[in-house]
C-alpha cells in the first residue's frame, strides 16, 4: 500500500523532470556543429536540396517552436522518424529496449549476488590479517570498468578458450521468435529449449562483464553497513540476552545493513544501465545502446531524443521502485 503511494507520488514528480530533461536534450542537440540535414542527404546534394531537407525537418524554425512541435507530437506517441534508418523512432526503441532490459536485469542479478557474497566475505574477515589483502583486491576490482571486462572476456573466453559466444543475442543459424521481445521468455513460450539455451549462453559474457564492474561498490557498502550496525547498541543488547552470533547476523544485522545497500544499488542502477550501452557495442548486442551509438554517429536527432528520454524514464522508474522498497523496509520512515 505504501509502496503504491510512493510510486504514484514519485511518478507524478517524474513528469516535470521528464519535461525538463527533454527540453535540455533538445537544447543540447540543437547547438550541433554538424548539420543533420546535410547528413541525411547523399554527398553530392546541392545547397538547395539541403535547404529543402532542413525545411522539411523543421530545422529552420526557432528553437522554442521546434520544441513545442516535438512535444505535441510526442504526447501523441509520435517521436518522429529516424533520419538515418528511415523508420519510426519509437518503434526502433520498442524493438531494442527488451534486449537491453534482459541484459540489464541479468547484470543486476550478477552484481547483486556477487555484491552480497563478497560483502559478507569481507565482513567475516574483519580484524584479521587477510582483510587488507581482500580490501586491496576490491579496490583493484573496482578499477576495471565494464567495457574493459567486456573486452577481456572476449579475449579470454572468446578468442583464447572458444568457450562462449560474444556476438549478438543468438547464433546466426537459429531463428529468433518475436513475441514479447524478451528472447528468453519468447523461447519458453514457443517451447524451443535450444533457442533458450543459446540465448542464455550469449547473455553470459556481457551480463557477467557488466555485473562484475558494479559488484565491488555493493560489496563495500554492505561491509561498511554491517560494521556500522555491529557498533549499535541493539546488537550488544541482543548479545546480552544470549542470542547467538548467527542469529544476530541474519535476523538483526542484515536487515538494518540492507537499507544503505539498497540505496546504493538504486544509485548504481543508473550507472549500470548506462554501462550496458558500451557492453552492447562491444558484443554487437542489438539493444538500445547500439541504437544510440549509431544515432549519435549519424547525428540522427529524433532517435537520440527518444532513446535519451527512454533511458531517463527507465532510471526514474527504477528509482521510484527503490524508494518505495526502502520505505517498506525501513519502519522509521513510516508515519507514527
Amino acid at each position, binding site marked *: 500500500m505504501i509502496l503504491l503511494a510512493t510510486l504514484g507520488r514519485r511518478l507524478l514528480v517524474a513528469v516535470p523532470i521528464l519535461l525538463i530533461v527533454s527540453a535540455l536534450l533538445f537544447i543540447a542537440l540543437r547547438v550541433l556543429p554538424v548539420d543533420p540535414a546535410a547528413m541525411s542527404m547523399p554527398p553530392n546534394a546541392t545547397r538547395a536540396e539541403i535547404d529543402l531537407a532542413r525545411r522539411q525537418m523543421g530545422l529552420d524554425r526557432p528553437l522554442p517552436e521546434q520544441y513545442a512541435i516535438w512535444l505535441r507530437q510526442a504526447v501523441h506517441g509520435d517521436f518522429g522518424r529516424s533520419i538515418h534508418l528511415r523508420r519510426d523512432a519509437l518503434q526502433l526503441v520498442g524493438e531494442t529496449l527488451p534486449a537491453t532490459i534482459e541484459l540489464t536485469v541479468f547484470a543486476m542479478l550478477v552484481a547483486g549476488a556477487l555484491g552480497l557474497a563478497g560483502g559478507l566475505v569481507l565482513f567475516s574477515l574483519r580484524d584479521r590479517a587477510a582483510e587488507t589483502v581482500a580490501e586491496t583486491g576490491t579496490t583493484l576490482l573496482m578499477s576495471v570498468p565494464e567495457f574493459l571486462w567486456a573486452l577481456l572476456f572476449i579475449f579470454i573466453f572468446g578468442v583464447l578458450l572458444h568457450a562462449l559466444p560474444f556476438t549478438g543475442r543468438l547464433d546466426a543459424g537459429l531463428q529468433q521468435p518475436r513475441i514479447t521481445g524478451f528472447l528468453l521468455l519468447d523461447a519458453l513460450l514457443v517451447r524451443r529449449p535450444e533457442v533458450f539455451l543459446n540465448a542464455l549462453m550469449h547473455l553470459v559474457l556481457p551480463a557477467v562483464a557488466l555485473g562484475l564492474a558494479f559488484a565491488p561498490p555493493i560489496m563495500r557498502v554492505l561491509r561498511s553497513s554491517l560494521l556500522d550496525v555491529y557498533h549499535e*547498541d541493539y546488537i550488544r543488547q541482543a*548479545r546480552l540476552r*544470549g542470542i*547467538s552470533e548467527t542469529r544476530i547476523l541474519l535476523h538483526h544485522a542484515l536487515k538494518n545493513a540492507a537499507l544503505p545497500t539498497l540505496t546504493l544499488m538504486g544509485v548504481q542502477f543508473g550507472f549500470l544501465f548506462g554501462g550496458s550501452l558500451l557492453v552492447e557495442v562491444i558484443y554487437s548486442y542489438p539493444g538500445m545502446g547500439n541504437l544510440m551509438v549509431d544515432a549519435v554517429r549519424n547525428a540522427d536527432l529524433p532517435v537520440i531524443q527518444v532513446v535519451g528520454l527512454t533511458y531517463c524514464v527507465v532510471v526514474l522508474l527504477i528509482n521510484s521502485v527503490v524508494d518505495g522498497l526502502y520505505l517498506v523496509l525501513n519502519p*522509521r520512515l513510516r508515519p507514527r
Partner: protein
Amino acid sequence: MSLLVARGLTVSATLGEARVPVLRALNLSVAPGRVLGLVGESGAGKSMIGRAIAHLLPPGFAITSGTLRFDGRDLLRMPAARRRSLLGRDIAFVPQEPLTALNPVLTIATQMDEHFSHLGVTSRMERRKRAMAALEAVHLPEAEALLRRYPHQLSGGMCQRVLIAMAFASRPRLVVADEPTTALDVTVQARIVELMRELQQRDATAVLFITHDLRLAAQVCDDIAVLYAGSIVEQGPARRVFGLPAHPYTRCLQLAIPSMKGPRRALYALPEQMPGLRAIARMEGCRFAPRCPIAQSECFTAEPPLHGTEHAAACFFTDWISAIELPDTPRPPAHARSEAPLLEVSGLSKHFASGGLLRRSQTVAVRKADFIIAPGEFLAVVGESGSGKTTLGRLLMGLERPTFGRIVLAGREVTRGAGAARRHRVRTAQMVFQDSQSALNPRRRVGAIVTQAMEASWQHAPRDVRMQRARELLAEMGLAQELASHTPAQLSGGQRQRVNIARALCVVPKLLVADEIVSGLDVSVQAQLLNLLQRLRAELDFAMLFISHDLAVVRHLCDRVLVMYRGEIVEQGPTEAVFSAPQHEYTKALLAAVPAEL
C-alpha cells in the same frame, strides 16, 4: 551465600604496548535478593563489571586475573554456549540508552518473541501470552497495540519498560542495570526506579545497580560500593555509606552534590580529576591521595586495604573524615537592583511547521513566554525534554526566528536579528553550549578558540592583542597557560567546558545563555564549574539564563527560576519560594521526582 562473587578481579586494557588495569583486584559480592549500588564517576571502571560478567569486553580489554563466580559456577571459564544460555535467563541486563537498545526495524512483538524463544518457550501462542503478561507486569497499557509498534514509535520511558519487561520475564537471579535512568527525564526516572524496585521485590532478584548518582543510589539500593580509579574504596549499607561516609572520597562526593534542603552553601570542589589509566598504573600508594584533603605521607607509599566488616573503607585515616567540612561561607545577598531590566521578553512564541508538501502540521515549541532578567541576575529555566527550554535559549540568541513576540536586550529590540541589531546582540549576549566536544572546532587551538570573537571582521584585533586576551581568559578560568596551544581533543571534559565559557566571556557580554552546561559531567567537575561560575559572577557581573533539568543545581546557582512544560512557562519566581511552595501541578511533580535526601 552470595550470588555473584568477584575476587581479585582485574580487567586490563592494552594501551599501545603497555597493559594497564582498569579494574584492580576487585572484591565484590552481591547477596541474593538485595540491591547493590555501584557508584563511580566516569573513568572509574564501573561499566567494565557488567561487561566482565557477560564476558563481552570491548576489543583491547581482557580479564587478566581473579575469579568471578555466579551461584558458585565459574563465569570466566565457562564454555561459551553455557554462558549464552545463562544470559537473558538467569542474568539479565537493563541498558543505559533505551531508545537505541532495541532493533529499529523489528517490531516489539518480534523482539520479545525471539527472547522467549531463547528462554525455551516452544509454542508461539505461549510466547505471545508470556509477552503480554510481561508488558502488563511493567504497567504498559494496551499491550496488544504496543506489540505491533516499532521502537521509534515509543518514548524513552516506554522502551525502558519493555527492556525491563524482557529482563525480568524469566525471573532472573541477577539483574545488572548499567545507568538505566541516566538518559531519561527526571519524572520518568522516578517511575522506572520504582518499577524496578517493585519487580525486584516480587521476585527477590539481586540487582547490581551501576550509577554515577550517589544520591539516587542511596535512595534505591540496599548496599553501596563506591568505585574510584578501578578499585572499591568504600562498601556498606546504603544509609551508612551515604549518611556517615568512612572514606574521604565518598565524603567529598557528598559535599560536592548540591542539595535541595538546608542552607545554600559553596560546593566542595575536588581539585583536578580522576587520574587516567596510565597514571593510575604508575602510582604506588592510595590512588585518591593526590586529591585527598587529609592525605598524609603514608598514603602515597602504601595502598590501604579495604577493612571493616559490614561497613568497609580503604583508608588509613577513616576517623578523620569528619574533619572534611565546608567553611560556612555566607552567600552573597540576592540582587535587588533597581536598574532597567537587561532582558525583556514578551509574548514570545515559536511555531515549527512540519510535514510534506500536502500535510503540513504545526508544533508549538514555545508559547507566549513573558519574563524579565535583571542585570547580574541568574535565571534558571527548568523542564524536561520537549518543554521548549532549548528553543527558548535559541530564540534569545537569534538562532531561531520568533513567530510572535518581542525580545528587548539592554534597551534595544533584537527580535529581527539583522544588521545593527545583530551586532548589538553579539556584543551583549553570548551562549555556552552543552556538548563541549562539538562546540569546539577540533582543528583550532585553544588560544584561537577563546578569542574567536576578535576575528570577526567588525571587531577585528591584531594578533598580539588576541594572544594577550587569550592569556587573560585562560588565567581567569583557572586553566594552565600552556593549554593555549593544545587542541580540544587533548583536553578533559571539564577543561573543554571552561574553554567554552571563556570563549563566551571574551567580549565581556552582559548576558550568558547556558544550555545544560553541567549535565553529563562528573560530580566533582560539576562542582568545580559551579564554583567557577559563582566567582566569575562576582568578578564580571553578568546575568545568566541557565537552562537545566537538574533542580538541585538550579537551587544552588540561580536566584529565580522559570518552570516550562510543553512550551509554556507554568510557574516563575524566586528559586527558594518556588521549590519550597510550588503552585503548579507540574512543578510539584518535578520536585517529587527528585531523589529524596537522607
